[in-house]
């Protein structure tokens, strides 16, 4: 899945979708993951980075990451495949 090109992501966790005019806010981990996605990292690479950096077990991360991705899909932030 590729993040849409026309998303403007600020360093403070503010996202602006130039196509729809909608804006979003992210918490710091959400911002970090969105930036990984923007840079083209694969799910497994993102998973490893977060597991290395944060105090979280694999199953908890998988659960919340899956939910986060589904929320991004719901907000239509990925390119249509």
């Amino acid at each position, binding site marked *: 899945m590729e993040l849409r090109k026309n998303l403007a992501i600020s360093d403070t966790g503010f*996202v602006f979708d130039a196509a729809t005019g*909608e*804006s*979003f*806010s*992210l*918490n*710091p*981990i*959400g911002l*970090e*993951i*969105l930036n990984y996605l923007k840079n083209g990292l694969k799910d497994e690479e993102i998973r490893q980075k*977060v597991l290395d*950096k*944060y*105090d*979280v077990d694999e199953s*908890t*991360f998988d659960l*919340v*990451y899956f*939910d*986060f991705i*589904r*929320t*991004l899909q*719901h*907000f239509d932030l990925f390119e249509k495949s």
Partner: protein
Amino acid sequence: MKLPFERPLIKKIEAGIPSKFGMKPTLKPIDNIDGVPVSDLIEKYGSPLYVLSEQTIRETYREAKQAFETRYPKVQFAWSYKTNYLNAVCKIFHQEGSWAEVVSGMEYDKALQNGVKGSQIIFNGPSKSREDLVKAIDNDSLIHIDHFDELFLVLELAQTSAKKPKVAIRVNMDTGIYPKWDRFGFNYENGEAWEALNRIMLSGKLELVGLHTHIGTYIMTPDAYRVAATKLADLAYNVERKFKHNVRYIDMGGGFASKNTLKGAYHTGIDTSPTFEEYAEAISGALISSNLNPDQLPVLILETGRALIDDAGYILGTVIANKRLSDGRRSLIVDVGVNLLFTSFWYEHEIYPAKGETQFTEDTTIYGPLCMNIDVIRAAIDFPVLKQGDQFVIKRVGAYNTTQWMQFIHNRPAIVLIDENGESHIVREHETLDTLLENERLPEHLK
């Protein structure tokens, strides 16, 4: 050393009506009740769990009492059993000096068992049986007559009773508020109440001891009490003038609002509910400025329930699951259902996480654990994203929830009282399957 993990979140920024109160406050967790950690209580007694604060009960009662006693010379509270009739709660109010106000034979017997003198039990309500009334007459209790059928029954019982029944009438009236309650008692405006008083006085068989009203519930307008007290004082004055009889008390009932927020309210209950002082000022002012003889002012009785106990009650609970709804909204499934939180049908209950402080919240629907669509604790609340197993606290649940609760799908949980020294005591055990089966009987052919 790894960094603490927080669930990744993205939230759409919605353009809507701006809050005139500015920045959204951070939801401070409630991690203890009267100094006892929430996690310890759940570990010891299970989840969900009702918790009552004895300190809050006593402080609230004393605050209300002071508000009235500094404005009126003779004040008596009567604890409204239906609001919360756990013996531990009733005993605290009785220790503080409250009489009992009951509305059924069951509540009446409970008050007697709690050591309340018969003459300090006010028997209200529309459904007193003949047996209830006989018992109340024998015990010199204060019978508040609701309708003419009851009045005639009491008159009949008085014929054969060794004691003269002590009675009051409940009066309903227009106090300028909506809804106008007229299903209980005798109406003031159409003359029914005056007629009932005349029948009582002319019968010679009953002792008219008081006048009672209860104008509604969650009354946000203290002035309605001023109107009600004025009308009762007028009735008392008319009785005094016509029959040379002074009623001993005027009972203003209950109906004071607690600090909970009603559904659909724009402002929170904390900001808008009147204080005890405001209610006291309205009622006392009306009685003192009435035509009643100042040397024989009646005792002012108050049956306040909700406003005295709501703040002392908490429900502690645990998150069962997070779930996304089809429209992308977050939902939380928790182990507290509407069967334990009846008041969630009319309040936007305050819910707080038991730990962790975050400014990242999401619009969330909080569902209870029942497999029933109506089991919604909060339809929409800006709430931190809790994970499975996280604990939370629901505030201001002391009124009505443990009397109107239902055994439904799950066993009802334990109720714990935290005393003034911070010690926790079970005041009602967690139900088990045996509790459910105790009164069931299986016919022989089905065994």
